[in-house]
């Protein structure tokens, strides 16, 4: 099956400038050579701790941040070769849902005008206009209104929400508004950037269910960025684990939960709190902090914190290799790490 989105060797470096006459003294390597592809209708999870570059990656895919190099192919179209006008047109196909439901809604716009905005920006419903029927602006306004109500129904908000302002809503409701806005242009692909991280657990479940429902109804494809593996387990079909700007492991969701191969993935899984006291085990905590992405460790970037690291780990960077069918890992100690999880 040909994928909807393919990312090849995507790189985003931020230059660090110093001095009176600023010159570049180094780079923050936020995303450093990431490749993956997402099939149609799939939910692809991207996990990693704060600062690993997952948000930068999500935004670079939509060209909200201009990538330094690499290739992004969306439905056969190379995004980085498009000019600004072509890109704007393609934006209706791909949307984003944000983490912070307070930051992501303009406090001075009503919910209705916010959801209507994309429709106005792109011109009303082209499928209707192709019939050569010229409609007056009030008729067009009516059509936009109708679409706003449709979207509010879709995300489970009352229709009278349209005339109210964002501050009148709770976090979960605000996230629904953000989803309605993202759906307004009937996109095929949505980046959910930590879409539920800021919500209470009970509300998280509601929003996750809503996203899953919308995916079934509208045939959406998601890139689901999260730091919470429990959330990822619930909604995704495939998962990639990111560490310091690189993907260290990629596999089907079930596979990664049953058979995590990279020591970092194992540490992440061990950090999920288990609500059953008898099954609680001494979690393998990672020592130390995330190293600076402006000066990543040589070789395997994880070796400074890895419990299984040996000298060779700092010598050469391990490639992302297939260890099981549809399961790739970048670690030279895979066999040992697999054996250690098998024992547990």
């Amino acid at each position: 099956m040909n994928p909807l989105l393919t990312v090849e060797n995507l790189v985003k470096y931020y230059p660090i400038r110093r001095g009176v006459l600023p010159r570049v003294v180094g780079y923050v390597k936020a995303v450093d050579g990431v490749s993956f592809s997402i099939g149609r209708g799939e939910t692809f999870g991207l996990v990693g701790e704060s600062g690993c570059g997952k948000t930068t990656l999500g935004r670079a895919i939509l060209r909200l941040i201009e990538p330094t190099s690499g290739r992004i192919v969306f439905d056969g179209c190379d995004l980085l070769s498009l000019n600004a006008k072509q890109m704007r047109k393609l934006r209706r196909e791909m949307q984003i849902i944000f983490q912070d439901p307070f930051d992501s809604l303009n406090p001075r716009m009503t919910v209705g005008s916010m959801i209507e905005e994309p429709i106005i920006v792109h011109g009303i419903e082209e499928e209707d206009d192709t019939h050569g029927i010229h409609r007056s602006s009030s008729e067009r306004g009516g059509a936009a209104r109708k679409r706003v109500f449709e979207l509010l129904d879709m995300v489970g908000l009352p229709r009278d929400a349209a005339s109210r302002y964002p501050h009148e809503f709770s976090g979960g409701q605000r996230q629904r508004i953000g989803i309605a806005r993202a759906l307004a242009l009937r996109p095929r692909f949505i980046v959910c950037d930590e879409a539920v991280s800021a919500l209470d657990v009970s509300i998280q479940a509601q929003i996750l269910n809503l996203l899953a429902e919308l995916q079934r109804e509208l045939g959406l494809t998601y890139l689901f960025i999260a730091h919470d593996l429990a959330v990822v387990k619930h909604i995704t079909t495939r998962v990639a684990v990111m560490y310091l700007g690189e993907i260290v492991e990629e596999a089907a969701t079930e596979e990664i939960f049953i058979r995590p191969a990279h020591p970092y993935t194992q540490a992440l899984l061990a950090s999920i709190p288990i609500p059953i006291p008898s099954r609680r085990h001494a979690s393998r905590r990672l020592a130390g902090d995330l190293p600076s992405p402006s000066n990543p460790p040589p070789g395997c970037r994880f070796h400074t914190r890895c419990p299984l690291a040996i000298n060779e780990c700092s010598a050469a960077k391990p490639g992302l290799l297939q260890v099981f069918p549809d399961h790739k890992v970048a670690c030279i100690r895979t066999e040992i790490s697999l054996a250690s999880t098998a024992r547990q």
Partner: protein
Amino acid sequence: MSPITKAGFVIAGSLVMLAALSPLLASWDTVQRQELTARLEAPDSHHLLGRDQLGRDLAARIIYGARVSMLVGISVVAISSVLGVIIGVFSGYKGGWTDRIFSGFLFNVFMSFPGILLAIAMVAFLGPSIKNLIIALSVIGWVGYARLMRAQALKVREFDFVTAARALGAGDFHIIIKHILPNSIQPLIVQASLGMAGAILAEAGMSFLGLGVPEPTPSWGKMIDDSREFWFTAPHLFIFPGLMIALAVLSFNFIGDGLRERLDPKQDR
């Protein structure tokens, strides 16, 4: 709202009314009519504020002087804030080289001139008239608004709703009008009311130096200038215009401070 802010609104409102209704309160003829026999007459029941060095009614001149002060104040604030908003928001929103040229170079060049000296030089060059005075004060005034709006735009453009608008395919113009401006304009109201006070004071200063409004239009600053020879013999000539300038400046400063406290959530009490 504190009583001081309320007082500011009442006084400023009365001054604006005074300026707007001045033709009803005194005729232009009263302003101009000279009675040299009655020059420097002290206030009495016929001429409430007395007469000036040419025997003109001081009350009428002060009422018409309000027109000049308000006209200059409002025009300067309007022109320089519109200019400042456009340049500042554009510079802050665009960032990069645009911002470096505007904020790094242009703003600093204008900030480095002593404002009132630049205005004096401009009026001396263009010739004294209300129009040239307004132009000169706007030229020195816009930078303050531009700096403020640049800082606001820099802050607001980082919000996710701006990123969302870009993700929707909205153009820069749309984003600035719909998202950046409505969320960054608030502190401008404070700046504008303080700027109003500054402009009124600057007009008085320029007129005092003879670079403001030419005769026969009365201006408070000019009236103080004319009174210089009679400070001891006829103090009412400078007391009343001086009082008006102080009242106008004070009232707009009160309004500015009051609004700042109200609009700044960190000072919420």
